[in-house]
């Protein structure tokens, strides 16, 4: 396995506020890395730094061995990085189908879009049923599926997932994580997962990266992280 996405010494600012101080992170080809840390530690900011939205950043970010530092979000999508943003970010006033069509915005032909939609409906049959409904009227879990499906439309090599469990009932969360496992194998996609629910995230991931106040505290395998007390320290101030 080789590194698909690599961050080295990444710093980021919101205006004058420095949110990331030193982030090093690797996602292996075909692997799942999870980024964990308490609220406000800079998890979402890290994803935004990769995608070059809302923040100013420094450091080195490379994808497939190529620096993506100067690229705009819409170019990064074309390289094969999908993003499932926090709060899902579905186009609530557009239909499910239109959301997926937009997911395929970077695809060249109408045929490819049609084909992609069939694929996504295969993964999430419920979305096909809800095809013509406005995205805003879907349940939280369905919206999460739609957001994931939308990101998978152009067959990305990597997807960035921001808190897929946020605001969902435990049963739905389990379902989503099961689907993620399935997608990972079926689509051969690598994942960078940001998650507040540490135990859930560590169960899915191979690698884990713990951050605190915009700095990496520990970078190791998910297995090691599970048995480490640093996590509790960071989350609960013990």
């Amino acid at each position, binding site marked *: 396995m080789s590194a698909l996405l690599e961050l080295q010494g990444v710093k980021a600012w919101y205006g*004058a506020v*420095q949110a990331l101080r030193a982030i090093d992170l690797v996602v292996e080809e075909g692997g799942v890395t999870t980024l964990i840390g*308490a*609220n*406000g530690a800079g998890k979402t900011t890290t994803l935004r730094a990769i995608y070059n939205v809302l923040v100013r950043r420094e450091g080195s970010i490379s994808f497939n061995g190529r620096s993506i530092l100067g690229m705009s979000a819409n170019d990064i999508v074309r390289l094969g990085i999908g993003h499932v943003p926090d709060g899902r970010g579905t186009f609530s006033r557009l239909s499910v189908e239109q959301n997926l069509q937009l997911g395929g915005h970077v695809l060249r032909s109408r045929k490819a879009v049609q084909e992609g939609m069939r694929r996504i409906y295969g993964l999430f049959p419920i979305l096909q049923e809800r095809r013509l409904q406005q995205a805003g009227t879907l349940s939280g879990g369905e919206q999460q599926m739609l957001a994931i499906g939308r990101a998978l439309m152009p067959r990305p090599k990597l997807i960035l997932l921001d808190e897929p469990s946020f605001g969902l009932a435990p049963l739905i969360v389990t379902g989503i994580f099961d689907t993620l496992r399935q997608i990972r194998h079926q689509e051969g996609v690598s994942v960078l997962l940001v998650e*507040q629910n*540490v*135990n859930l*995230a560590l169960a899915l991931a191979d690698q884990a990266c713990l951050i605190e106040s915009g700095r990496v505290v520990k970078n190791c395998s998910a297995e090691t992280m599970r048995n480490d007390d640093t996590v509790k320290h960071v989350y*609960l101030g013990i």
Partner: protein
Amino acid sequence: MRFGGITALDDVSFAVERGTICGLIGPNGAGKTTCFNCISGVYQSSAGTVALAGRQLTGMKRHAIARAGVGRTFQNLALFPSMTVRQNVMVGGHASGRGGFLASMFKLPDVRRSEAEIEARAEALLKRFGLGQVAAARIDSLPFPTLKRVELARALAGFPSLLILDEPAAGLTHEEVDELATQIQRLRDEDGITVLLVEHHMNLVMRISDRVVVLNFGRKIADGLPAHVRTDPAVMTAYLGDDK
């Protein structure tokens, strides 16, 4: 001093003792900020009451709540960019000033005196927070940690009896957080101000709070001494997820 049953959240009740620091924590979306905004009057709670030293705050206008002695800071800073640091702090002392539109236009003696008092108060606070050198600087020319201190000084200029701090540690380095901890403790010990602290920085909360209230999904799940709260199983689950 008590806040009884703030709803908009789900039936949250807790009380903050006079002259103590109370930490309010919880995972994302737990309702901390909503709770906070109910107290300072940004949102009106749909049921329940908030009371300060026995006096009802519920239903009062925001400026009246501030006048009643509730001061606050903002998570993402809400300083006044067209003013200098000194002027920002002086705005904080607005409530203690005297004179309306006409009196101010004619600069009546009372207005002059009140202006001098506000300025003296501001100078003292600027000095206390190490802002003397930047007193005449424009807000947008200063680094973030300095601005956080300006905001704290501004909130103090209004002589609050209760100060609510919205994530004061966000965006600060370790050393800066240490200094912040000392400052907040001074507020309690020297000024006798009651502090309600909403914060993600666990270390800070656990270190300086006399008491910690934990919210999750809009409900209170724990309330007690810091040492008890952090070993509470319900809190663990809220923060780390179910152990499966």
